[in-house]
């Protein structure tokens, strides 16, 4: 009867549709043919080929089966996978959740790069899964694991991820197939042979002992003197030195108090004081390095012409923002009365790679001297002062809640509809939870800080504000 030692080797490949998982499967099948090993492979591509998650499953019998034909499974089985390959990190975690990675058996080979799902991308703020948590779970679960960023490696070397994966699989030796047969299989497929051989060779160099560090590149803003200096420079560029001094003055009262509040205020105050308006957009679009960056993205060679078209669509609000306050209010009132607020706008296609097009934007950017006379400026400065006053007052009552008021400012961002929505949510939370406490109408509540946090997260849950309404009603 059965001896465990002769059982088929099982290989499961998790990939996204269109990534070449099928090609990887075919290479392994072909290599097994060349080695004269009994082999079988299946997949369920279906519509998943259109960017969805899909898997490919292979079984092979290392060593010739003496003419006996083994009965091979068509589907992967929980707890019975020898080699788990994933071309993306979340798909590796899907395999883990599905029971296809086990500590007594599975060698895991996975690329750590992320291809975000729509659910992660469409969140109104940060909605991505934590890659570090997934990585840690994978490393704990598999018998052995090779985790590396195959996508970056592929990009750097002009090869495909699947070829690198094939090399890494070959290196494990778990399939019992000689390397020459993998090379033969790549050759037989007849497509992009050179690049795929190069990718295969790269994959061969990667093992669980490789130096594969994952540095968190994201910079973190700390409220030390450097960070404040950064913010000051930002304000000088945005407006002038006088405005930057105003930032210091506004921040000063907080620096002696609660450090968490101080840090949040330092960060959000710099963002709020450099609010987004047409002038700031224009400033960004005429930046000296911008065209070179875009040329790099497009892969343009030095002599090649490249045209950039910028999409602008100022509406009534954006234009009114720039007008003197009195005129702006008249304009906004007219628009509201005539229901023109969201109907009148000026779609512009500006070719910023032509001299005339560029100069139009340049002229807009040069309007920054006018900014302090604009309606939006007045509005923002008033709002900022109210916000700072609220934090200060709350600081004397409930430091936790003061921290949350500081963070609440994160809801306000962008232009047009995004800005209006953020402002609306911000005001709603202020009115419902914070104002009653500050005015003494309601007594300080023990859960106030938590409530503000919950409301802020609810405001980010959906663009219609339904979750926020539900959250505030529940309180």
């Amino acid at each position: 009867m059965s001896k465990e030692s002769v059982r088929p080797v099982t290989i499961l490949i998790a990939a996204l549709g269109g990534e070449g998982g099928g090609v990887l499967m075919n290479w392994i099948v072909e290599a097994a043919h060349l080695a004269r090993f009994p082999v079988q492979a299946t997949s369920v591509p279906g519509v998943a080929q259109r960017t969805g998650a899909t898997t490919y499953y292979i079984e092979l019998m290392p060593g010739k089966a003496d003419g006996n034909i083994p009965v091979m499974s068509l589907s992967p089985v929980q707890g019975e996978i020898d080699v788990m390959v994933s071309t993306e990190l979340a798909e590796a975690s899907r395999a883990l959740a599905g029971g296809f990675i086990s500590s007594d058996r599975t060698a895991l080979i996975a690329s750590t790069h992320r291809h975000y799902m729509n659910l992660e991308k469409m969140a109104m703020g940060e909605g991505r899964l934590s890659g570090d948590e997934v990585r840690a779970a994978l490393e704990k679960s598999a018998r052995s694991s090779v985790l590396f960023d195959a996508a970056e490696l592929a990009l750097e070397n002009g090869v495909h991820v699947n070829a690198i994966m094939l090399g890494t699989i070959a290196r494990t030796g778990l399939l019992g197939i000689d390397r020459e047969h993998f090379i033969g299989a790549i050759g037989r497929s007849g497509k992009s042979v050179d690049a795929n051989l190069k990718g295969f060779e790269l994959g061969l160099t990667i093992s669980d002992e490789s130096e594969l560090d994952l540095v968190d590149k994201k910079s973190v803003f700390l409220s030390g003197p450097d960070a404040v200096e950064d913010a000051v420079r930002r304000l000088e560029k945005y407006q002038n030195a006088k405005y930057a001094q105003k930032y210091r003055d506004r921040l000063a009262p907080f620096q002696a108090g609660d450090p968490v509040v101080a840090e949040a205020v330092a960060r959000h105050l710099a963002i709020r004081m450099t609010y987004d308006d047409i002038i700031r957009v224009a400033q960004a679009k005429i930046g000296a390095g911008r065209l070179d960056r875009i040329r790099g993205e497009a892969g343009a060679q030095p002599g090649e012409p490249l045209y950039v078209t910028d999409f602008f669509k100022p509406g009534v609000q954006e234009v009114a923002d720039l007008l003197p306050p009195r005129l702006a209010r008249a304009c906004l009132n007219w628009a509201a009365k005539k229901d023109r607020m969201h109907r009148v706008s000026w779609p512009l296609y500006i070719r910023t790679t032509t001299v005339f097009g560029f100069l139009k934007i340049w002229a807009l950017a040069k309007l920054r001297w006018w900014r302090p006379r604009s309606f939006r400026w007045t509005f923002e400065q008033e709002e900022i002062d109210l916000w700072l006053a609220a934090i200060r007052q709350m600081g004397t009552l409930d430091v936790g809640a003061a921290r949350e008021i500081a963070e609440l400012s994160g809801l306000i961002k962008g232009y047009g509809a995004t800005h209006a929505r953020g402002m609306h949510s911000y005001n709603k939370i202020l009115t419902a939870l914070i104002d009653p406490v500050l005015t003494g109408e309601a007594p300080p509540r023990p859960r106030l800080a938590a409530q503000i946090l919950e409301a802020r997260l609810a405001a980010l849950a959906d663009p219609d504000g339904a979750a926020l309404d539900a959250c505030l009603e529940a309180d």
Partner: protein
Amino acid sequence: MSERSFAGEIEKLRLGEGETFSGEGILAITKALLQSGVSYVGGYQGAPISHLLDVMVQAKDLMGELGVHVEANTNEASAAAMLGASISYRVRGAVTWKSIVGTNVASDALSNLASAGVIGGALVIVGEDYGEGASVIQERTLAFALKSSMWMIDPRPNLASMVDLVEKGFELSEASSTPVMMGLRIRACHLMGSFETKKNRMGTLNTKDKAPEPAGFNYARLSHPPATFVQEAKKIDQRLPAAVQYIVDHGLNETFPGPVDTVGIIMQGGLYNTVLRRLTALGLADDFGNSQIPLHILNVTHPLVPKEITEFCQSKMAVLVIEEGSPEFIEQQINTILRRADIQTKVFGKDVLANAGEYTAEIVMSGLVDFFGESEPVGIMLEDVRDRAARLLNSSQSASAHLAAPPPPRPPGFCTGCPERPVFSAIKLLKQELGDFHIATDIGCHALATFEPFSMGNSILGYGMSLASAAAVASFQEKRPIAIMGDGGFWHNGMQTGVLSQLFNHGDAVLIIMQNGYASATGQQYLPPATTPDGVGGGGTQAGEIEAALRALHVKWIRTVRTYGVNTMRDTLREAMTTDKPGLKVIIADGECMLARQRRLRRVNAERLNTGGRVVAPRFGIDAEICTGDHACIRLSGCPSLTVIDNPDPLKRDPVASIDSSCVGCGLCGENAHVASLCPSFYGVERVQNAKLVERLTDRVRRRVIGWFADADQPA
């Protein structure tokens, strides 16, 4: 030309006696058809059998040599009706489609065919789109075979068995004058394996050797009363016994003995590998099919052979019937057979196995453990079996426990640059204006709008059925419903069931037809009508044909809109939703399938680059500094190339939108940014290769001048 080229596979179809075919299951079936001497083949595309048809259509030369008529049918009813050729002529024919849906569409013709019976072998190859990876409602084809008295083959999933049973299927059909169905599960269709080939054979009558005379008039062959009454009786009195006899004589079902013979397992052929490997895992079989438990494999699931069942069960205390789906037709029949023979063997089945869904290894294993636990056969160490099952379960569960939560699902989505995505952007924007409205959706790529970020659609009633499914809804809704249909669905049957019915009943609905030129979801097959004489399956739909067809039907309100014009699309939709004009309003959303377009462009551009021609490569980009991090653009698009990256601004935490290098420059981002008044962070880029001197010089001068004005103080 379909998405995939099968040039290499076509060569495999030419293999002769005693050679080895290595490849995909569905192509092995194609080879089996040629080895069986078919005179005609046809079908309708759909996973998992699209490749069978694609390869036949592409193998024009080989089919010509063998005298095989190939038909790319316009729907499954058309394919099933084609089998009518085998009613009066001794010709073998095969058709294929995706089941259950295709069988539903074909069922009228199938009933008539099964009643009349055949004299030439007639085989229906159905891709049983059931279980993991399936894209349609979950029903099994066996029920159709049962009610129409067609025979059902469910082969063991290895290429040699599948190929052998195709050939035997034709013989079974001829021996019993009955059309035969062969059901292939998804993984069997995509199975990579090998088998020993035979020489291809030509059919008795074919496109080269034609019959001089048609078959004579024979009323008995018509499915028309009173012949139908005779035919119904014949099915049971003559055809069934003939089929049973053939199955026994040729050993279509298989029995494998085993030492633990007080119990046994009866299973559908397609489940054999799963069951055997679970027995292996439980220590009750080896890797080469030698089982301690006796097995009876039903490669034919209809009709059952009572004698085989009684012989297998006679000396056993208990048998387990492993049969997917409900109701448990086979288990019931086995119970009846045993009662009639007064055999007291206990029958287990659905009492230890799941009522619904694919029989995965995990379900089969727990069923086996329960069966052994209940029947307690001598010769099995029950504790050992239970230990092995528990160990497997533990090792996978303890590993997945390291994960805080499983990742969210990753359903398929519209491809990068898909022309259908902008239509849903426009609908989403219109909903912001008019409030929500009823959307009847359909089968095809556009059904991907039921997933994020669009999450749209109130019903799916079948291919081309969206408009018909909205007919009653319109009568009690204040706002008009919108029905969405692909051009594939329109030509498949949407024109009759939807458009004609609306017109006939003075309906007032809004219909959007996605005109992308191909049956895209199934692999970009051409659509009818074929206006260019480019062989079977047409040479591609010309723009304007749908509109011409609608005009001929007297649809008054028709607008053809380029899909990427989101603004125009939204305005047109608004007009359709709010106009006072009565009657059906049709918007033809025009935009070629981007996968097909890119494949063509890549070829054209590569040629042009080589010959020094000017090539413009468009793409889009985002200024990270201007992006608000709100991702409204993503909620309106969901394009795979529109993703997020860490915010480069140290003050800001929200990830910003970013466009990766897979962008094809379809322009939707820019359109959406304008129509929805999103942030001004989007820019379009055109990179020009092989530019002429004047253009290059102009660009240089411009860059120089712009450089003087650029603000060195601003970040890149």
